[in-house]
C-alpha cells in the first residue's frame, strides 16, 4: 500500500499517493495538469513548459509539475491568473507555426493541441508574418510518417527510441522555429517497437502509414482486449468500426496501459495482427463439401462421436480458458482425448527481453493449468488410433507439414473448426468431413493466462456480418455440458481455485490476476 499524503490544490485539500510527481499524483484523483513532453514511461523532460504550476509561498513560486514531487502540505495553484496566462501563452507559442491542417490530420479528435486549445487558449491568431514551412509527409521508416510542421518538439519519440528500444534513430536538430525531429541520414527507424512513437506523439506529427487516412478517430469503437500475437498478452485497445453497408472491421490496435504486463507499449508485429482478423476468414460451414446449417453439422458430428471407438480433440493454445474448459467437459462426457499439440506456435530465438516472446500462443499457461496434454508423441499416438478427429481452432499447419497431416488422418473422419482457411493444410481441408467457421479472438470475450501467469480478461467488440460460433458454442453444439460462456467459466473456476472469488470473468481486475507459481502449475 502506497503512503498517502495531503496537499492543497486551488485551496482544496486532496489526498494523493506519495513518491509521484504532481502530474501523476493529481491525475489519479482526476485533476488534469496539461503537458506535452512528460510521459510516465519516459520520465520528465521539462521542455514544453505547459505543466507549469504555481506553489503558494514556494521558492521558486512557479515550477514544472512533471519535475516536482508531491509533498505533504504543498499548496498548488492551477487557476491563478499567472498560471492561466502561462498556459495561454505556451499554447499561443505552439500555434505560431502550426499549420492547423486538422482536416487532413489523422490525429484530429485525439490531439492534445486541439484539446488544450479549447481548454486553455481559444483566441484568434495574432500572427501576421508568414508561417515557417517545413517538410511534410516525411517517411521515417518502420511505417512512421512525420510532419515537421505539426511537431511541438516535445522529444517523446526521441526519448522513447533512446531509453526504451535503445536504438536512438531520431534526434532533435536546430533550435527555435527551425527545431525539428530528424533521423540520422540513411538510418531510418528500424526496430520492432517503432510504431509506439505514433501513440506517444501528443500531436499529429507522427502518424502510422498503415492507419493513414483509413478512418477518423471519432468514428472508431473501442474494445479493451488482449493481444493474441504472442504469450506476453499485451493489453490492447481494438479500434474497430462498421461502416454503412460494410462489415465490422478492425482499423488498428493500440497498446493499453498495464504496468504488470506491457507498460504502455506493444510490438509492431502484434499491432499488425489485426489484419488476420479482417482478411481471408472462413465464412461457411460445410458438411461433406456442401454448405449446410450449423445444426445439421452438429447433429451429424454428434452421431459420429457416439459411434466412434476413439475420438481426438485438438484445441488451440490461444483459446480462452472458458473454451478450453468447454472442450474438456465435452471430452469427459464422450470419453475423447484432448490435445493441445502446438509445437509450431513456438518460434525459436524470435523473442527478446522486452515484450516479444518465442511462444506465439496466447494461453499456453492456461492449457497447462487445465492439465491438457500437448506433447507431440501423445498427439501422434492418439491421432493414429482415432477414427474421429475434431479440431477446435488449432492452426496445425504451423506444427506439421501437409504430408504429415495427411498421413496422420488418412482414414479418419475430420471435423475442422477454424478461423482461417489452410489451418489443416489445403489438401487436408478438401478431404474433411465437415468444417465450421469459428469466431476469432476479437469477436468473443474470455480470459487468457500469459507467460508470467497473469490471468487477464478481454472483451470482443467486433460484430461480424457473418454469424459464426465460438469454440464454447461449438463444443456445446456437440453436446458439451458447458452450454455457454458462464457455465464454462464455472468449470474454469473449479479447476483454478485462484479465480474462484470472481463471480463472472468481467469481475477480474483490469490489471489481471497474478497466479502464484504453485497455481500456475510451475
Amino acid at each position: 500500500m502506497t503512503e498517502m499524503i495531503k496537499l492543497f490544490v486551488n485551496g482544496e485539500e486532496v489526498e494523493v499517493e506519495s513518491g509521484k510527481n504532481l502530474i501523476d499524483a493529481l491525475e489519479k484523483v482526476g485533476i488534469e495538469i496539461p503537458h506535452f513532453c512528460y510521459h510516465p514511461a519516459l520520465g520528465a523532460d521539462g521542455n514544453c513548459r505547459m505543466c507549469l504550476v504555481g506553489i503558494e509561498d514556494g521558492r521558486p513560486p512557479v515550477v514544472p509539475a512533471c519535475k516536482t514531487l508531491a509533498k505533504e502540505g504543498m499548496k498548488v495553484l492551477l487557476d491563478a491568473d499567472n498560471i492561466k496566462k502561462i498556459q495561454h501563452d505556451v499554447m499561443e507559442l505552439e500555434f505560431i507555426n502550426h499549420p492547423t491542417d486538422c482536416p487532413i490530420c489523422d490525429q484530429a479528435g485525439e490531439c492534445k493541441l486541439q484539446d488544450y486549445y479549447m481548454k486553455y487558449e481559444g483566441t484568434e491568431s495574432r500572427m501576421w508574418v508568414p508561417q515557417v514551412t517545413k517538410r511534410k509527409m516525411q517517411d521515417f521508416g518502420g511505417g512512421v510518417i512525420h510532419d515537421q510542421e505539426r511537431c511541438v518538439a516535445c522529444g517523446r519519440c526521441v526519448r522513447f527510441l533512446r531509453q526504451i528500444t535503445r536504438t536512438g534513430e531520431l534526434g532533435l536538430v536546430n533550435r527555435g522555429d527551425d527545431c525539428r525531429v530528424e533521423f540520422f541520414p540513411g538510418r531510418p527507424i528500424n526496430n520492432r517497437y517503432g510504431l509506439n512513437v505514433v501513440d506517444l506523439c501528443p500531436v499529429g506529427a507522427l502518424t502510422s502509414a498503415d492507419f493513414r487516412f483509413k478512418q477518423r478517430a471519432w468514428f472508431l469503437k473501442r474494445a479493451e482486449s488482449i493481444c493474441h500475437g504472442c504469450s506476453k498478452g499485451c493489453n490492447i485497445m481494438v479500434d474497430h468500426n462498421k461502416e454503412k453497408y460494410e462489415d465490422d472491421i478492425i482499423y488498428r490496435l493500440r497498446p493499453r496501459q498495464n504496468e504488470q504486463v506491457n507498460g504502455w507499449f506493444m510490438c509492431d508485429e502484434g499491432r499488425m495482427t489485426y489484419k488476420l482478423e479482417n482478411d481471408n476468414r472462413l465464412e461457411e460451414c460445410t458438411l461433406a463439401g456442401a454448405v449446410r446449417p450449423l445444426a445439421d453439422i452438429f447433429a451429424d458430428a454428434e452421431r459420429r462421436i457416439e459411434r466412434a471407438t476413439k475420438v481426438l480433440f485438438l484445441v488451440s493454445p490461444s483459446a480462452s480458458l472458458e473454451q478450453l474448459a468447454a472442450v474438456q467437459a465435452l471430452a469427459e462426457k464422450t470419453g475423447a482425448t484432448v490435445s493441445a499439440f502446438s509445437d509450431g506456435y513456438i518460434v525459436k530465438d524470435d523473442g527478446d527481453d522486452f515484450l516479444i516472446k518465442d511462444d506465439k500462443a496466447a494461453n499456453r499457461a492456461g492449457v497447462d493449468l487445465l492439465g491438457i496434454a500437448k506433447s507431440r508423441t501423445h498427439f501422434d499416438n492418439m491421432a493414429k488410433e482415432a477414427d474421429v478427429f475434431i479440431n477446435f481452432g488449432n492452426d496445425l499447419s504451423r506444427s506439421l507439414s501437409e504430408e504429415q497431416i495427411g498421413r496422420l488422418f488418412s482414414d479418419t473422419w475430420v471435423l475442422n473448426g477454424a478461423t482461417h482457411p489452410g489451418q489443416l493444410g489445403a489438401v487436408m481441408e478438401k478431404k474433411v468431413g465437415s468444417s465450421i467457421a469459428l469466431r476469432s479472438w476479437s469477436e468473443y470475450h474470455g480470459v487468457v493466462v500469459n507467460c508470467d501467469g497473469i490471468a487477464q480478461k478481454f472483451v470482443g467488440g467486433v460484430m461480424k456480418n457473418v454469424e459464426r460460433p465460438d469454440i464454447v458454442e461449438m463444443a456445446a453444439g456437440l453436446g458439451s455440458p458447458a452450454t455457454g460462456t458462464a457455465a464454462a467459466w464455472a468449470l474454469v473456476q473449479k479447476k483454478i481455485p485462484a479465480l474462484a472469488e470472481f463471480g463472472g470473468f468481467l469481475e477480474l481486475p483490469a490489471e489481471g490476476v497474478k497466479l502464484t507459481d504453485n497455481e500456475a502449475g510451475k
Partner: protein
Amino acid sequence: MAAKVKQLPSRGGTPAEKVYLIEIFKGMAITLKHFLRNLWDNSNLYVRHYPEVQPDIPARWRGRHRLLTHPDGTPKCVACFMCQTNCPADCIMIKAGTRIDGVTEKMPVSFTIDLAECIYCGYCVEACPEDAIRMDTGIYAFTSSNREEMKIGMTEMLSLKGGFPEEEYQKGLEGE
C-alpha cells in the same frame, strides 16, 4: 411567383347554415360555376403549370449537392469527414486516400451521397471547412426507378455547376 392569399370570414352560425343541406347545394353551385368558367378560360387558376412553368428558386435554396473544384480543376474536398460526421441522415459515404495531384495530402477516393436518404438539411455545407460542398445547383427534382441510381458519386458531383452567380450565393450566406 408570389402566392395569392384571400381571407375568408368565418361562417356557420345562422339557422339556415346549421341545416347543412342548403349550404351543400350552395357549395355545389359554386363548384359548378367555377367548372363552367374554367372550361372556357383557365388563366385564373391558382396552380402552377408544372413542369411547363418552373418555379423561381432563391440562391439559398438547398437543392442537389455539388463538389467544388479549385481554379485548376482539382477537387477542393480533402476528405476530412466533417460532412459525414455531421450528417443526421447518415447518407454520406466517403473513402479517403492519399492525394496524388499535389494539392495537399489527402483526398476522397470515393464520395457518395444517397439522395434517397438525404433530408436536404444543409448541415454538410455548413460543416465543410474547405467550402468544397454546396447545395446551390438549383436542381430540386431528382427521380429514379431504383434505389441504386439515387446514389450519386464524386465524378457526377464534381461535374455539376452552381445555379447562381457567386455574389448572389455569398449574399445568401450573410448573417449566418
